[in-house]
């Protein structure tokens, strides 16, 4: 059918791509680089703000100074040779050592100067040692702890977000085809339930499937001890993934199906869709080329918003499900008041957000013809 029908767009398309091709790639690159730089600057400024907040009222300084004094006081009092000296002399020695240490760390200089060094350290994740938390391999370096916790979070979040994305997209298409059916009405009626965040749904899932039925584990990533056999390991991992991922699915499903279904319905009322239908194109083709294609930028935007929500929601979901990722790490850092880890997690979350936004901008640019053709691209 499609082979024999020529729409005006199809006729024009080859000509246009041939003419614009070299130009459009260049535009794409320029757009991407521009986005990259502006996002990097945004992360930089954002991180600086975080440092300012963290240091508001010199709080971090106080913590560090107290730590230095504690450490030196302890080492002096433990030293058998120094212990015999009179108290006043010992106190003086401590004061001197503290002053040296503070000078070494630059604590005697004004904050503005130091803040830029903090910024550099933060951006390179050079955050020193954690106070309480250590990585599974025993390291106390914040960077290593964070890098160790990153993969579980990525695993959980990509599984959750992609399954949510694909399932709700397919389902939304199905509903837009069966608009007005009972299932459609049911989804509309249920969409307010999405106001409950995933961790909240997770509590109920844990209650039903872990506590009452006992089918699935209460939390964690793999069974303890972890199985040796890779297949058994993967199975155990999958078993532990079921509940957190379903919590995400249930929490996000109705709202995203509803909003995408609405998009599709609005777009399917456009004149060109009517025309395509009048021409007798199959509904699959109409869906693919006349509904999905133009709504793609919108879909990507809402996917981006979903992902951004996801990174932050991960903190609670991981906490509830004991998932050994970044969120759980941040939770433990909060419990143990571990400043370096808390600040480190701010950095890593800012990076994750920026990378997400950048990747989606890039995909957006690929999908949105305005960027390639050059009518200015999407306004942010």
């Amino acid at each position, binding site marked *: 059918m499609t082979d024999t029908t020529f729409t005006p767009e199809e006729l024009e398309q080859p000509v246009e791509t041939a003419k614009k091709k070299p130009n459009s790639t260049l535009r794409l690159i320029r757009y991407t680089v521009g986005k990259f730089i502006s996002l990097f600057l945004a992360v930089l400024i954002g991180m600086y*703000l975080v440092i300012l907040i963290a240091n508001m009222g010199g709080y971090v300084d106080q913590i560090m100074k107290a730590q230095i004094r504690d450490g030196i006081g302890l080492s002096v009092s433990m030293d058998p040779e120094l212990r015999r000296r009179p108290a006043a002399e010992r106190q003086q020695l401590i004061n001197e050592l503290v002053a040296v240490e503070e000078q070494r760390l630059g604590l005697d200089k004004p904050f503005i100067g130091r803040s830029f060094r903090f910024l550099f350290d933060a951006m390179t994740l050079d955050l020193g040692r954690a106070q309480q938390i250590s990585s599974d391999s025993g390291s106390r370096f914040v960077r290593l702890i964070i890098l160790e916790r990153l993969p579980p979070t990525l695993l959980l979040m990509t599984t959750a977000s992609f399954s949510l994305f694909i399932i709700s997209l397919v389902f939304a298409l199905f509903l837009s085809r069966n608009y007005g059916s009972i299932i459609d009405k049911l989804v509309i009626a249920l969409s307010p339930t999405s106001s409950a965040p995933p961790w909240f749904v997770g509590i109920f899932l844990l209650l039903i499937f872990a506590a009452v039925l006992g089918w699935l584990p209460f939390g964690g990533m793999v069974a303890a001890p972890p199985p040796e056999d890779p297949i058994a390991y993967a199975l155990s991992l999958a078993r532990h993934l079921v509940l957190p991922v379903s919590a995400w699915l249930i929490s996000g499903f109705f709202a995203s199906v509803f909003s995408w279904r609405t998009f599709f319905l609005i777009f399917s*009322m456009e004149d060109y869709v009517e025309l395509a239908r009048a021409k007798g194109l199959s509904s699959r083709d109409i869906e693919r080329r006349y509904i999905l294609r133009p709504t793609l930028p919108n879909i990507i935007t809402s996917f981006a918003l979903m992902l951004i929500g996801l990174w932050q929601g991960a903190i609670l979901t991981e906490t509830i499900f004991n998932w050994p990722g970044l969120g759980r790490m941040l939770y433990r850092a909060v*419990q143990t008041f571990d400043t370096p880890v*808390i600040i480190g997690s701010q950095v890593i979350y800012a990076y994750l957000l920026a990378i997400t936004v950048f990747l989606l901008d890039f995909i957006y640019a690929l999908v949105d013809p305005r960027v390639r053709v050059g009518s200015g691209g999407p306004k942010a």
Partner: protein
Amino acid sequence: MKKFFASIKQYPSAIIGTIMILFLVVLSIYVVITIPYDQAIAEWRGSEEMQGASPRTARPTYTNWFTSSKLPETIVIDSADPEAGIKKTVTEVAAGMWDIQMVFEFDYPYDDFPQEIQVVLTAKYQEKSPFVTLTWYTPEGERIKIADVTSRQREVVRFDLQDRLVRNLDGVPARIGLLRVPDVVPYEVQQGTYELHVDTIVFEEGSDIEAQFISFGQVHGAAGTDHRRRDLLLPLLWGAPIALSFGFLAAIGTTFTTMFIAAVGVWFGGIVDDLIQRITEIYMLLPFLPILIMVGVFYSRSIWTMLVVVILISIFGAAIKNYRAIFLQIKEAAYIEAARSYGAGNWRIISRYLVPRIIPILIPGLISAIPSYVFLEASLAVLGLGDPVLPTWGKIINDAQMNGALYNGYYYWVLQPAALLMITGLGFAMIGFALDRIFNPKLREV
């Protein structure tokens, strides 16, 4: 307005939502009036002794309605309480020696054993402390000696800790051994009327004793208790006004500031608009929840500090982009042109001409935003950053989580606050959803 109500009738979800919210509002007002703030805080923050005769992690009483075997309620009999009707029989047994006899009689119609049994003795004496003998009579008339105690001013006799008694009961904990059907395994409760005799010998004129018998049940009150013996009804009730005010204030604060900034940006255009746009982009990369967590850890966990911080970090939120798009359209309208031509100032145009036009679009968004803030408060509490003073739903869930409520089967502990959160969230979401469709006719068509 009439039309508005007529159209809202078409959405049963909006009506259900309104009923839910009205219920919560009425509940909040009632709670704030009947349990004053100071009293609520004092009870919530009080030590375990202040909780009186509440058992630990007891289920709510209503759980008994659904099960065939009845869990025991708490039984308290206090001789100092005139309503308990405990009579004291005083006889002089020798010169300067008096015997005070008290009989505590109670029914035990339950199918399970109590959590703990204890007697609290309060003695009045100058120098010679009274000597107390506690004896237990089962419905069958069997006599079991519990303990001999030389009572101080205040003496707590925990039955499970009486070694000799437990030995006499063949090593079975006293709370079970005293109430079981003899020699039946697994243990079964012997239902019937029990008696506890408190025999006191005092050695001084005017010396006296009061005894309080407590059998801590496994169910307590309308909402159960937590690990610190606190009645959960209080935080459940008080959570409502707190959640509503937090959600409402946060939603209003963020929505209106965001909208106003968008209006300013659109109206002045140029550098101002650009600046606002760039700041918004930076703000989008600020990790919202982690920053809140940071503030909670470093500065203050007070819910009101959190509220201010939430508003501050949402001012330049992504919503600005939406409002901007709408304002850009409104800006071109003819009536704005007219206002400008009669000489209206910038701020006048923004506040009198631009902003009012967007209010109808704003309200559904505002109402739908409330649940997210209500849940945000709960989320912070679950992370252990709940307000240290106020009793909130999130705090209950956090306590439950910390004490392995799901793992240990204390489902009521999680389910009750969760249900209230659910009602709040759903109520607002349903109203917001319906309003969205009423105010945005384009959505209504589909």
